[in-house]
């Protein structure tokens, strides 16, 4: 497949606004909110990718965004599972990276 554009300049600015605001409030928020802000930014980024037609990689991005949006708010109700979710997400992304290396 060909590489797709994933962000317009305006969308990148939206994401930067979210990340810079997150950096500011992370100075005063409880530590566990830092991972929450980062994973929430991942969801926003995945949302932008989906708006630009990721082709045959749509399933991955849809799944990633759906899982993050479902589980990120466990921060407020189930912190043990939230921590587990945060620990497991990089491995899931790594699986996607590996599968793409294999298919090259």
């Amino acid at each position, binding site marked *: 497949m060909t590489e797709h554009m994933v962000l317009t300049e305006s969308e990148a600015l*939206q994401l930067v*606004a*979210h990340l*810079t*605001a*997150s950096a*500011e*409030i992370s100075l005063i*928020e409880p530590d566990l*909110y830092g991972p929450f*802000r980062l994973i*929430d930014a991942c969801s926003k980024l995945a949302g932008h990718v989906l708006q630009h037609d990721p082709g045959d990689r749509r399933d991955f991005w849809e799944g990633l965004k759906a899982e993050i949006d479902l589980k990120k*708010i*466990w921060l*407020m*109700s*189930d912190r043990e*599972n939230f921590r587990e979710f945060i620990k497991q997400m990089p491995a899931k992304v790594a699986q996607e990276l590996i599968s793409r290396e294999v298919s090259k």
Partner: protein
Amino acid sequence: MNHHRPTFEIIRTRRVSRFFTNEPVSRGDLLHLIKAARWASSAGNRRIHKFVVVDEQKNVKLIRAVSPGILGNPQALILICTDKRKAAMEGVKMDVDTTTWIDVGTASQNMMIAAHEIGLGSCPTTSFSKSAVRVILNLPDHLVPEYILQVGHPREQARSIGTGEVAKLPVEAITFWGTFPKRD
């Protein structure tokens, strides 16, 4: 004893709503919430807070962009600001006087209860960039943004935030009567 159940039921059934429909909130309803805030208790009746209502979608969107605590799509925002001029007139020591924060809470709770009573959802927000909100709303220097109440018509799944129902702590777990036993 005369229990006023309707009031207590409104308090008991209120929940935070993070996700909303696209239906606008009328200015009449927003004014109703401000009136509720106006009737909140205020330390020494000093009334050092001001309320900035944001219902123009262009500005709601801008504030959302710099407010990581806003996860959904509120149709209106009510910003509570401390009026430093009024606080100075009242002799409030802003760096040590915690009543200023308590007054934000009482005003907010009144608004959330009033919102719930008329079928609106609301969500308290402190996770936002104060510096960015100041620029977006062109706030004068004497107004300090403290808190944002998100307002909208709640979506049905608005209350679903976790892996299951969160059990409320029993009253016994958070209440102590009278004095504590002496410690050795």
